[in-house]
């Protein structure tokens, strides 16, 4: 299904993501890497204060769509596949791969590239490449 080309909204949204990463770095000294923040919640002990900001960050993420809907008067546009087994496999791969590879689109892609990290550059090129290939196979070979 085609989606509309939205360079302006995407640029503004991207800049907000950048502002968030700079806020988290400047105030808390942390990388805004979502897979790292989310996965650390799995080993956080209940009541431990060290990871509590991580919980608040995820809380902020969860509030974003409702806040947007409230201000905008309409829910954000989204189309999620109803192929549930496919999404279960995708979720497993994303969770496992992002922890194993120490980062995802935010940690490696946005923060790592800005820190000129060679590991992040290689990771970003790698996941972009396999993502292009998997969409190609899904849509043009297997047929989505």
């Amino acid at each position, binding site marked *: 299904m085609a989606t509309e*080309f939205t360079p302006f909204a995407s640029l503004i949204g991207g800049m907000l993501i*950048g502002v968030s990463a700079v806020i988290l770095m400047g105030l808390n000294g942390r990388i805004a890497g979502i897979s790292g923040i989310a996965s650390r919640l799995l080993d956080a002990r209940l009541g431990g204060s060290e990871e509590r900001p991580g919980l608040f*960050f995820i809380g902020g993420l969860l509030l974003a769509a409702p806040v947007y809907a409230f201000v905008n008067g309409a829910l954000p546009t989204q189309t999620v596949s109803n192929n549930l087994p496919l999404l279960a496999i995708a979720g497993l791969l994303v969770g496992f791969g992002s922890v194993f590879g120490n980062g995802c689109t935010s940690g490696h892609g946005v923060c790592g590239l800005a820190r000129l990290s060679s590991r992040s550059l290689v990771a970003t090129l790698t996941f972009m490449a396999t993502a292009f290939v998997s969409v190609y196979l899904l849509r043009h070979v297997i047929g989505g």
Partner: protein
Amino acid sequence: MKNLSALIAGLVFGLGLVISGMADPAKVQNFLDVFGTWDPSLAFVMGGAIAVTLPGFRLVAQRGRPLFDERFRLPSRSDLDAPLLGGAALFGIGWGLGGFCPGPALTALPLAAPGTLIFVPAMFIGMWLAKNVPMMTRPSPGV
């Protein structure tokens, strides 16, 4: 204060994901579908974000320490190893198949699409496996 700054950062991050279109899996998959219904919008998301973080990180680093902590917690490794490449490769496959990476999936969770409600728990199971199953955990704990 660290909790408040983290909450605000999370909210701004999520709003950025929603406004940019990154929280819509169809838009992500169309960005990745160069030979089909290609939508190059997401290049602008990455570009916009890095246009802010590149100078922004430099600016905050000049202060020497973050406002609410004693030091910056930054990854220090520069070597390339198999887990980094393998993990990134698997992550990319999953990202392409579902159109979701961790931030957008969590942001889309309150919208409660059936696919998202399956994806997010599966993602946490994958993270747990990578951390807790000895055969699957990384050989060296690095950042």
